[in-house]
């Protein structure tokens, strides 16, 4: 037996609380991040991702405090993203206890930050998050969006993925903006196209509504890891149930 496919619960954090929205809007409170992180770890989560969606820069320090607290209690990999603007932000998050830092909007505004951060801290801790949306008016199928899905970039998501890996991204977190919060399943054609195009692992994100979606994400979308938020936050399923379901469907997981 070999490498297991990973299940990664995602915690969107603002003002020190975990929240979940639909299509990046309408935020609902889902609880205390440290408590939720501990619960997912006990359920067998393979990794945890924290996205800091705090709007104002005043509250940036809060996420560092949360990561410090989680990292001293939970011994699985922690990824943190949101608001990473410079190499110094990467350093601060790693020092607080993050194992990987996810870069999104800043990578589009200034791709060299990916290169600089990978050179300084190693590709293993640099994740590039790609928010993509299906488009009709371009020569390509999926376009990269930034600023939480509000701003089009004119970039082809597949080519962008290849470019980010060439600059040193060690992993890609691919979110379908069409699917996020909709519970209709991952965008598997998008994920598959990116997974086939690059050598590094990809994490599928956006749209999980049931456990079969996780299986499809791996089998149809070629994802190395699947990320989900709401199905876990509101107690619909535990991480353990998700893993057992995947195992029953022939996917190698850590049980």
């Amino acid at each position, binding site marked *: 037996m070999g490498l297991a496919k990973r299940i990664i619960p995602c915690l969107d954090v603002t003002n020190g609380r975990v929240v979940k929205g639909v299509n990046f809007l309408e935020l609902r409170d889902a609880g205390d991040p440290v408590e939720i992180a501990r619960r997912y770890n006990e359920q067998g989560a393979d990794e945890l991702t924290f996205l800091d969606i705090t709007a104002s820069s005043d509250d940036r320090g809060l996420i560092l405090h949360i990561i410090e607290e989680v990292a001293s209690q939970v*011994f699985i990999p922690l990824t943190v993203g949101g608001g990473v603007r410079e190499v110094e932000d990467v350093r601060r998050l790693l020092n607080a206890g993050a194992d990987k830092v996810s870069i999104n909007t800043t990578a589009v505004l200034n791709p060299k930050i990916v290169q600089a951060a990978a050179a300084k*801290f190693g590709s*293993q801790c640099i994740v590039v998050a790609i928010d993509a949306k299906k488009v009709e008016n371009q020569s390509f199928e999926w376009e990269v969006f930034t600023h939480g899905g509000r701003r089009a970039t004119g970039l082809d998501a597949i080519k962008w993925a290849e470019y980010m890996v060439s600059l040193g991204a060690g992993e890609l977190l691919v979110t379908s903006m069409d699917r996020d919060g909709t519970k209709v399943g991952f965008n598997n054609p998008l994920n598959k196209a990116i997974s086939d195009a690059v050598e590094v692992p990809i994490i599928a994100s956006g749209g999980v509504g049931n456990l079969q979606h996780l299986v499809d994400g791996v089998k149809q979308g070629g994802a190395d890891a699947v990320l989900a938020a709401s199905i876990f936050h509101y107690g619909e399923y535990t991480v353990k149930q998700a893993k057992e379901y995947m195992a029953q469907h022939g996917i190698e997981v850590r049980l």
Partner: protein
Amino acid sequence: MSKIDIAVVDYGMGNLRSVSKALEHVAPSKNVVVTSNPAEIVQAERVVFPGQGAMPDCMRELDARGLRDAVLYAAQHKPFLGICIGLQMLFEHSEEGDAAGLGLFKGNVKRFPSPDMVDSHGDKLKVPHMGWNQVYQVNKTGSSPHALWHGIEDGARFYYVHSYYVEPQDKGVISGFSLYPKQFTCAIAENNLFAVQFHPEKSADAGLQLLTNFVNWMPNSA
């Protein structure tokens, strides 16, 4: 200096917080010190040698801080745990940047040949090898399992993130392997030294058990 139970070698490469936090968690009564002071490493009862990033950079930074001799001394005289690049640096040479290592073990560090690798379903295997893989323990003929595998199931999963792996010339030092898709060495053991490719500090219960075993390990009395 107050007594140092466990020194975590800091040569300026990456994040050592995870390692020290995990050690403090399993050994709350021990004095764990993250240090780049050779004297502290030589004086400590036990030494952990972590590493992340690229091996050529790690070797350069190690030498820039004058830590080579202290690490070599610890590796030969104290309970010593190498992690990730801390395993790779113990070998003679790495394909990564064509770098020379510390040369304590004969053999090379090689890269996974990514474009050629597929799993049993024919799907492409990614590099870096990232995630939880099964670790199969290797025990010397006729001897009981190594003290660092105590309480850990054979085939337990540990967390990995790496693109290079060690290939020891002396197969007798191999203490564990994983499959990706071929067998590669993920743990070596010799006398007072144990070194692993995976990250025990990020491997939940199995990893914490291995760190507990290290903290309690008395190699010379075995």
